[in-house]
């Protein structure tokens, strides 16, 4: 993100140096502005960073309260004669020395410990108050490994479903919207303004208001619990048609006339001339389609009821309803779901913001 901001901020820096306020004197309003912006960085970034850091904690560390900032875990040692690993503790002995002991089990306010360097010496009973766990920073990558690699892991199915819906819906949206936009910008025919009004009037119909009948139509088409059932209702976006039509209006008609002279078919004109010239507008429509389809929730929630057709978002929401919430996996999955968009954002920020600023679509 720093790279991206560099280009746009060089202008800002120049203004800063040459501008009215910039001559070394810091105006009170500058202080307030930077104060507000830095507070914004904290409030906007901290929650997400917190979730990412938490996703690298072991399930034991996640249960600690108050939580630690970085993922710590108690150091584990293997002691001869004991099964598995034992947690290591710093123990203050009665004489005031600090020794490292491995805990075998905890009984009430006392813990049974053993000296890992000298297991033969037998069990030592230590008051819990005198023992503090030996901790090291440990990124529990195993949360992710378990999530992605364990056999019977469902996550790849959810990823596939989400990807399939996003890609298919976006491709269909682009083709259908640009075809309609081409018809509505480059031809005059009876009923063209009526068609434009019919398409744009759907801007006034929020998807949530027609939820029940949309479900009925999806059911009539036999597409309940089918990925196409959440793809088809979303593809005819009025904003996409509008944006593309406005852009195609700026393409000179002489290009089309010239192509007709050369006996190019109308489809060829659309595919070979108009589409390539509309690529900036297509890019904006594509980005918004990808964003919305990846994040869709209400329609999939209604149409997709079986686990094998769940999208990532549905799966993520459904983990909450389970009896025992496995937070370490939930957090890892949350991070993974947000990750592709974080990358997309870093590379496409300028397109997205200029798209929103010019059309107000999302």
């Amino acid at each position, binding site marked *: 993100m720093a790279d991206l901001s560099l280009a746009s901020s060089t202008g800002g820096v120049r203004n800063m140096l040459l501008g009215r306020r910039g001559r070394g004197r810091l105006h009170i309003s500058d202080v307030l502005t930077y104060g507000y912006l830095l507070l914004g960085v904290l409030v906007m970034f901290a*929650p997400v960073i917190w979730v990412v850091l938490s996703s690298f904690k072991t399930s034991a560390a996640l249960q600690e309260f108050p939580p630690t900032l970085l993922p710590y875990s108690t150091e584990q040692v293997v002691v001869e004669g004991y099964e598995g690993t034992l947690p290591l503790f710093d123990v203050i002995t009665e004489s005031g020395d600090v020794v490292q002991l491995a805990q075998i089990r905890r009984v009430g306010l006392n813990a049974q410990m053993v000296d890992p360097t000298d297991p033969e010496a037998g069990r030592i009973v230590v008051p819990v108050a005198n023992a503090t766990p030996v901790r090291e920073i440990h990124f529990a990558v195993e949360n992710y490994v378990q999530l992605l690699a364990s056999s019977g892991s469902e996550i790849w199915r959810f990823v596939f479903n989400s990807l399939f819906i996003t890609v298919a819906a976006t491709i269909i949206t682009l083709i259908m919207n640009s075809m309609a936009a081409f018809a509505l910008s480059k031809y005059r025919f009876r009923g063209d303004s009526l068609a434009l009004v*019919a*398409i744009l009037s759907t801007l006034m119909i929020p998807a949530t*208001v027609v939820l029940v009948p949309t479900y009925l139509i999806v059911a009539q088409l036999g597409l309940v619990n089918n990925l196409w059932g959440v793809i088809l209702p979303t593809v005819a976006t009025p904003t996409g048609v509008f944006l593309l039509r406005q852009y195609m209006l700026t393409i000179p008609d002489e290009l089309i006339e010239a192509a007709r002279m050369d006996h190019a078919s109308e489809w060829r004109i659309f595919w070979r001339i108009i589409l*390539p010239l509309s690529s900036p507008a297509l890019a904006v429509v594509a980005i918004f389609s990808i964003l919305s389809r990846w994040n869709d929730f209400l329609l999939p929630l209604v149409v997709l009821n079986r686990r094998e057709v769940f999208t990532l978002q549905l799966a993520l929401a459904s983990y909450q309803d389970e009896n025992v919430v496995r937070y370490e996996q939930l957090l890892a999955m949350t991070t993974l779901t*947000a990750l592709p968009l974080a990358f*997309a*954002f870093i590379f496409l920020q300028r397109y997205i913001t200029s798209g929103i600023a010019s059309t107000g679509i999302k």
Partner: protein
Amino acid sequence: MSASLRIARATGAVASLPARAIEPLMAGLQKAIGIKKMPWFFLLPNLLAVILFSLLPVFVNIFYSFTGSDRLYPSQRPFIGTYNYETLLDCGNYLDPSTCSRDLFWRALGNSLVFVPTQVAAMIGIALLTAICLNGNIRGRGFFRGVFFFPVMLSPVVVALTWQWILQRTGVLNGILTNLGFEPVNWLVYANSAFFWSVFVTVWAHMGFYTIILLAGLQAIPRDVYEAAKMDSASHWRAFTRITLPLLKPVLLVVFILAVIRSVQTFDELYVLTGGGPGSATLLMVQYIYEIGFAVQPRNFGLAAAASLLLGIVLLIFTLVQLRISRGSSNG
């Protein structure tokens, strides 16, 4: 722009394979139906999808709202007149939801009537303040703009889970409070605090969207207007109320309409964050429609359709009134 060229080139390369097969087909089609009909051919797929999934549903919705039973298919649904509307509006005392036959509808409506104005006011206030800060002579504008905008890209489920993780009983917020010597609070268990956090989280997630629109509006205001005001030694506040606000009014109106329409439809974040709870403290209209139509058995599609039509009518009237006001003021 180079990125767009690369995207275009890549899509062009992939698209050229089936395109070569399609072109002769399309040329044949043009010969068969004539060039006059070709625009309809281009229009048809999108128009069909619009009719099937946007216009038809409006009429089906009206039909549903006048029929009963839990059957999905229209042919199996008996006509019951305005019964659905009557039960929705049937109330002993309109100020007390528990006297209504559909008390949850009125609770959801009441919650929405508090939630929408609060959330929209907070949203636009914060977005405007942020846009003004970003419009100043600051270093790293692109970075700060990105900071405020990126939650817009996060999915509502991710947003809700993130804040749930922070707000839970043993979450980091309570951890900080404990370290400062306060008692930890179970934020999402009490009606008032759950409502507050519902507003907070949805503003957090969406304010960047409106900030971008407002920032574009601010940048469209010519700098020399401010220079002139400076010459007349106008104060910052005066410049803001006399120049910025009037010139920003059209953009503010768009932002206001968008914010209200979206705020009324809030569902995803709260469904995951609070589930409408505790009790029905954060239950809003769309979740009510979802609950009666899809979640609670037997599914009551008719009632859900009636409720969503009422919601749609309110939104429509609101939008038309706003547009009328804006047209009136721009003419006058």
